């Protein structure tokens, strides 16, 4: 087998994963060919300019080691966010080792630990890398101590580097070739290839990224996806270099891509195993599961005329994002739209931003909700992730909501404020450990609903940026839920309704009324905003009218100038939704749940 190493970089957000990846590409590119480097960087610059998250890019780094051997290093990039933890786990399953990156000034954070556990589950070689050593605030000794105590790794082996300054890059590469084991696998066995990513190409359709564990295959072969049973004829296989680099064959140990006339990425299940139709393997690679959305929100066009364009945009978007699910939805206030399911809040943000930026849609997203379970008196079980379908309260026998295990790492001095925040958010069963002096790792059981909105923002605020957070969904628990309705100018706005815990209803009611008061511009008449449960008003606020807006002067025949001012206002209004006779800005629907910074 050729000299291959398959590895990933894992890190807490902002610890320097992307920067290090760039640096590795640049460094190895220089060794091989000057032009190669320039093109890679150009290529990525364009992507950055377009604001695309370079998600799960895989790239082959040619590297000549100090000992003079030639290696092909497959860098399998992983999405750096808890929302995509399943994709991370599939990427890790395709590697033999990881670089565990730690910011020398921040130390070990919540996702560092979560990522470490994931790497351990896959029994990977783990190379701790202390990054940002160029920073004046870098504390290498403390980072080492945390590697020993928090992570239980041998800190003597940690590689020191500055991705930004290009220090220690060769040491990182040497560590990869010496400490990550080569892939094993038998080229003679039946094909077993793990799909860890998929993306969409407008000319070639869906393209799967895969790691070959055993066997080999190439163009003309018929492959079968083991979970769905679907079979495709392979058109092209190859490696990711600058561009796709077609090969005659992909064989055990390598990482590459497959093009096989697959229409959309939704036809490719990440974590699925590919095998040969003619000579199938008996068991698939372990760990496959169907990812289910956990956060739901509705999308509406601001102007109902734009509904067909939104349908089109979602279809196109979906070609490239299998994780997004959606179905038709309608609201009295907002008209025709879609109820969408997301992997988490970041995923929701990405979808929103891309629909607006790449597909030029003006959309309204409603406040995110989690999926609730209800058992009715007649024994029916109901799953509701849209407050509009909250059942009649008299029929409800029991209601349940999803819970998470939340892990927060923070300097000890913030323990008080974080404890308070978590308890406010219905956190319970706090467990606290002190892995290293001055640092606390604390774990809470919390309702998912309490973190999907703005928990992370709040945590960052109260800990001045030092707190980090990671979570996993654990179970459904019985919970006393009610539906909070919002009335604007006396009219119930269905798209603003929320399902909330009874004890938190008043707080939410007050918050939503206060937020809307800030979000909705003053009108030329008074607007009352009320929160209600059933028919009972539990909170209210009032937006006082503006008294005057005329530019009193309008003499002479220059009416055009005045009209232009009005046209500008009219355009501003287009960013708002008329609900009854009130204009509600697009942003108001989501922001109602964001608490204000004190």
């Amino acid at each position, binding site marked *: 087998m050729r000299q291959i190493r398959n590895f990933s970089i894992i890190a807490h957000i902002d610890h320097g994963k992307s920067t290090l990846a760039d640096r590795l590409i640049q460094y190895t590119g220089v060794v091989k060919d000057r032009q190669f480097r320039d093109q890679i960087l150009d290529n990525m610059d364009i992507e950055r300019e377009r604001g695309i998250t370079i998600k799960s890019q895989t790239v082959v780094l040619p590297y000549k080691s100090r000992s003079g051997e030639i290696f092909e290093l497959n860098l399998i990039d992983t999405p750096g966010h808890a929302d995509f933890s399943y994709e991370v786990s599939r990427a890790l399953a395709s590697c033999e080792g990881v670089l565990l990156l730690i910011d020398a000034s921040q130390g070990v954070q919540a996702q560092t630990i979560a990522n470490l556990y994931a790497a351990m589950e896959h029994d990977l070689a783990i190379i701790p890398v202390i990054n940002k050593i160029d920073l004046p605030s870098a504390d290498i000794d403390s980072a080492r101590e945390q590697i020993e105590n928090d992570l239980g790794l041998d800190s003597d082996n940690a590689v020191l580097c500055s991705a930004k300054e290009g220090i220690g890059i060769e040491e990182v590469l040497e560590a990869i070739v010496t400490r990550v084991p080569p892939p094993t696998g038998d080229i003679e066995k039946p094909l077993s290839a793990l799909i860890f990513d998929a993306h969409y190409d407008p000319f070639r359709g869906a393209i799967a990224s895969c790691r070959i564990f055993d066997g080999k295959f190439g163009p003309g072969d018929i492959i079968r996806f083991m979970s769905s049973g679907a079979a495709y004829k392979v058109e092209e296989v190859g490696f990711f270099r600058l561009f796709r680099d077609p090969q005659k064959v992909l064989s055990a140990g390598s990482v590459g891509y497959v093009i096989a006339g697959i229409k959309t990425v939704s036809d490719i299940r990440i974590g699925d195993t590919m095998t040969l139709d003619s000579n199938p393997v008996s068991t698939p690679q372990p760990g496959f599961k169907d990812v289910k959305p956990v956060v739901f929100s509705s999308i509406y066009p601001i102007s109902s005329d734009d509904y067909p364009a939104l349908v089109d945009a979602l279809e196109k978007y979906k070609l490239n994002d299998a994780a997004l699910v959606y179905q038709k939805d309608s609201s009295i206030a907002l008209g025709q739209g879609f109820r969408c399911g997301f992997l988490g809040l970041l995923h929701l943000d990405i979808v929103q931003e891309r629909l607006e930026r790449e597909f030029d849609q003006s959309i309204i997203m409603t406040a995110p909700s989690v999926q609730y379970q209800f058992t009715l008196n007649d024994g029916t079980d109901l799953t509701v992730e849209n407050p509009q379908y909250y059942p009649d309260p008299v029929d409800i026998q029991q209601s349940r909501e999803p819970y998470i295990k939340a892990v927060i790492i923070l300097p000890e001095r913030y323990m008080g404020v974080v404890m308070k925040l978590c308890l406010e958010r219905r956190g319970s069963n706090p467990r606290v450990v002190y892995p290293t002096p001055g640092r606390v790792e604390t774990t809470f059981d919390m309702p998912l609903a309490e973190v999907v909105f703005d928990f992370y923002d709040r945590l960052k605020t109260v800990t001045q940026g030092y707190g980090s957070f990671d979570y996993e969904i654990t179970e459904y628990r019985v919970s006393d839920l009610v539906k909070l309705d919002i009335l604007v*100018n006396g009219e119930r706005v269905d798209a603003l309704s929320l399902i909330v815990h009874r004890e938190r209803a008043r707080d939410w009611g007050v918050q939503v009324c206060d937020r809307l008061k800030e979000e909705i511009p003053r009108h*030329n008449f008074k607007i009352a905003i009320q929160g209600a449960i059933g028919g009972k008003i539990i909170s209210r606020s009032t937006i006082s009218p503006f*008294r005057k*807006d*005329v530019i009193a002067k309008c003499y002479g025949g220059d009416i055009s100038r005045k009209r232009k001012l009005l046209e500008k206002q009219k355009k501003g209004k287009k960013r708002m939704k008329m609900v009854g006779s009130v*204009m509600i800005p697009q942003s108001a629907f989501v922001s109602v749940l964001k608490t204000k910074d004190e």
Partner: protein
Amino acid sequence: MNSQEIPGLYIHTPFCRSKCFYCDFYSVASRAEIPAWLEAVRAEMKLYKEEFPAFDSLYLGGGTPSVLEERDLAALLESILQNFAFGADPEMTMEANPESLSPEKLKTLRDFGLNRISLGVQSLEDSDLKYLGRAHSAGQALRAFEACRSAGFSNVSVDLIYGLETQSLKSWKKTLDTILELRPEHISCYQLTFEKGTALWKKKEAGRVRSIGEKMEAAFFLWTSRYLQRRGYCHYEVSNFAAGREFLCRHNRKYWRHVPYLGLGPSAHSLAVVPQPRRWWNVKSVREYCRLLGEGKAPVAGWEFLSREQFDLETFDLALRTDEGLDMAALKDYPQSQRVLAQWQKSGLVRLSEGRVRPTRRGFLVADSLAVMLAG
């Protein structure tokens, strides 16, 4: 669209004694170019005499037309009457400022048939006049008014400005009371605005002057409207009051109802309504204006066709600034307007009757937002 009605003629005299601090009309504080301008305006008349043969209103505005000497005034009016016809009973107005109006000029105007003077008084408090950068005193203004009456003008309008930080409701009332004793046929009360680029705007940016704020502005407006109505004036447009409906300003109402008008002189705007509404405007420079006309070219700086949408938006805004209000038939393509109208009626901003939407006094104050919301 009012293609049936007879158009109005406007002539812009871009000269002033000095530049008032708040003013963003096009005018220069030198009289050197008056002869060239006069020649050019006369040339411009020729360009349009076929297209606009007849008017029933004339408005000499500015700038300050009263800075023109009698012989220039006479020459200007002579050309106007030579080139255009003005039916049986035209309204013929000239704007005048106290510092440059004289009995002799007034007589010349009367001789040519002018029948209305719009006098720039602004305030009768000298501290206000100083704040505004006006070139006259309160005393001069009162004397100028009397001169108009003596010359036989039985239709005089007075321009006033309110909402200055140097002003209190009490001092404003004093100005109004003195004016009311003169019983002018028409009063325009303009709210002070800080137009970008003006001296007053610059002072505001520098923090040396400030606006009195939305609340006080609204209070001044409402009080003024009520006070003048009690004194027998009808509040027929946001800024305009008339001592009887026969004294509504015929010429200005053309602007507000899309009746065609021809504007001559630098920076003047014109509107034609057939075959499609079109507005055009002249260059904002006397020199450029004279040069173009010298070459036999129209001194037009730009023009636009009004789309249906634009026309409607203007109609809504202009109509809702007048007491006649808006014909609801104009809203038939704006179905969403019905709910908004109901809301405004409830909130006391408009009255709906006889198929019209009429703004209330408070509605006048928010006419712009009314128009924008109606237009969807």
